[in-house]
């Protein structure tokens, strides 16, 4: 244990430089979050992830945001366990009808000001599941402020999207 801890002191950190915020995402957000309410939050956002029918691929990459390479928390972004503590819902999956009510309730339980991000092709457009009897479009369920495409979006793509949201907050 001591050796592993010592190594961490001696070796250079793994954390990489931040990607620039996604231009397209910035443009999308400009209309949506350029309000003063966001200023009150300061340079910090609490994110509640909601899996609304994902294949679990998106979750794997969202998890990766917490690893030392991406180190999400250095940006003041962190995941919280309850929607009551959240500013942002990060929604994945094609919004299965079986999760629709839970998603709406989670959104309702999130205090304003609040934003919802659709992460991954499934949440963005239904992906391969768009025509299924068991799924329903995200934007018809809760208001979506930002779309991050990809199947799944890479951690870098997720980070770009989140930074774009944060940039609007300052």
């Amino acid at each position, binding site marked *: 244990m001591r050796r*592993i*801890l010592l190594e961490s002191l001696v070796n250079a950190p793994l954390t990489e430089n931040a990607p620039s915020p996604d231009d397209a995402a910035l443009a999308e957000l400009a209309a949506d979050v350029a309000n003063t309410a966001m200023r009150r939050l300061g340079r910090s956002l609490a994110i509640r992830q909601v*899996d609304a029918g994902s294949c679990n691929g998106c979750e794997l990459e969202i998890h990766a945001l917490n*690893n030392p390479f991406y180190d999400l928390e250095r940006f003041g972004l962190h995941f919280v366990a309850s929607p009551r503590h959240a500013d942002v819902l990060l929604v994945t999956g094609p919004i299965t009808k*079986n999760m629709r009510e*839970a998603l709406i309730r989670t959104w309702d339980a999130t205090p304003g000001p609040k934003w919802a991000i659709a992460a991954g092709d499934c949440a963005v457009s239904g992906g*391969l599941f768009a025509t299924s009897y068991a799924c329903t479009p995200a934007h018809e369920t809760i208001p979506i402020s930002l779309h991050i495409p990809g199947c799944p979006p890479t951690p870098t793509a997720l980070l770009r999207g989140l930074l774009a949201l944060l940039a609007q907050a300052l």
Partner: protein
Amino acid sequence: MDILAPLLAEGCAAAAHAPWPRAEIGTEIWQRVTLHLAAGELDLLGLWGEADRMHMAVSAPESREIAVFTLACPDGRFPSVGLSHPPAIRLERTIQDLFGLIPDGAEDARHWLDHGAWGVGTPLGTPGPAPEHAYAFLPVTGENLHEIPVGPVHAGIIEPGHFRFTADGETIIRLEQRLGYVHKGTEGLMIGAPLDHAARLAGRVSGDATVAYASGFARAAEAALGIAPPPRAVHLRAVMAELERIANHIGDFGAICNDASFALMLAHCSVLRERVLRAAHLAFGHRLMMDRVVPGGLTQDITAEGLAAIASLIPAFRARLDQLAGLYDSMASLQERTVTTGFVKHDYVRRFATGGHVGRASGRNFDSRKWPGYAPYDATPFDVPLRTDGDVNARVWIRIEEIRQSLGILGHLLATLPPGPCRTTLPAPTTPVEGMALTESFRGDVLIWLRIAPDLTIERCHARDPSWFQWPLLETCVYGNIIADFPLCNKSFNCSYSGTDL
């Protein structure tokens, strides 16, 4: 002594079913197969429906036979298998929800995947009205008991499902799971889909096992069409499958330790996991290697840089893993949480034919790479780690040992990579053809069964995740444990929600 051969002989053999036989049978033989299952002489591999018939895949581990039995259900009913063989219960409830076929005699008539929200009932059979939304949990009575409902939205970044705990103080008396929240209608979308589109859907049944699913789909399709993919593709599929196994096992190892508040391990394991995904991206152009495996081979060859990255990753990964395993082994406070926690009974893994680390930590020596076996594993030396202590600690060690085996397999595969193309063209069959495959994901054996029409579209495809036979055992292994240890038990299983909700 053969069990399945005489039963098959009494039925009517299907013309085009590979590589194992399928027979159309009557209710009498259906019930005899069920009795063999109940007696523990057969393992249930899968149970699925079509609009007017039922299929049951079984294996006889001692005589090494595998077969599929098909029962026509003209009146929409079939004799319940779950009545005498509990592993079939959730599968039958699923079939009832999707196809409207009724398991005669079944004790649990509650819906499973259908939560009354689809706006339609039995969508893959004769569509009817949606059922009521109400769901009755099993009653629990006794003094001092209280209920703790958890989910579907959980506290962490994980899939949704509902757990209903009954506890006496801190001790869990019962757990009842309610799943189905991520039902996407995948099998419905596959019906009529062109082969390549269906392959993409198969790769999204459970995203963490996308390579295993896509490989299983491809192998079932290739068996049906009677073709073999090029040897280089076969090798590279296994390279991807082992990278996927390593990435998942190391990620779960860190996450289990994190659930015991040992965050350092999660940090180190997540670095290792990231290194595997980066090598995968370099080698195959996608971090999770989605949509790379297709019927007939691969969409692309491995890159030279990727090959080098994987080769240099192996020794570094092994050295780091040895360090971390040593650290786990030396932490008494960590083991205090994992040893004897969440014990899975040997009898249960046998009855449920539970695959993967859950089965192998409780003494069930089954790995579909060994038996029934498939290329290139038949020519690749490796061991299947086995333990009998059946607790969280045992499942942790099985995963560590499996990573070590996978690193060895990777080394062997890279050293023996055959040259040549990575894809072959698919012949169009003149009549519908059927195929089946068992493929070892990091979680256990994935079964894919399919029927392909002459225009190379899917008539029916069924995917059975290993979690079907693991979820029920998670319910049993938490009895007498404290609530605070549930996350450890749960993570040590890491069942797929999407894989079983479909």
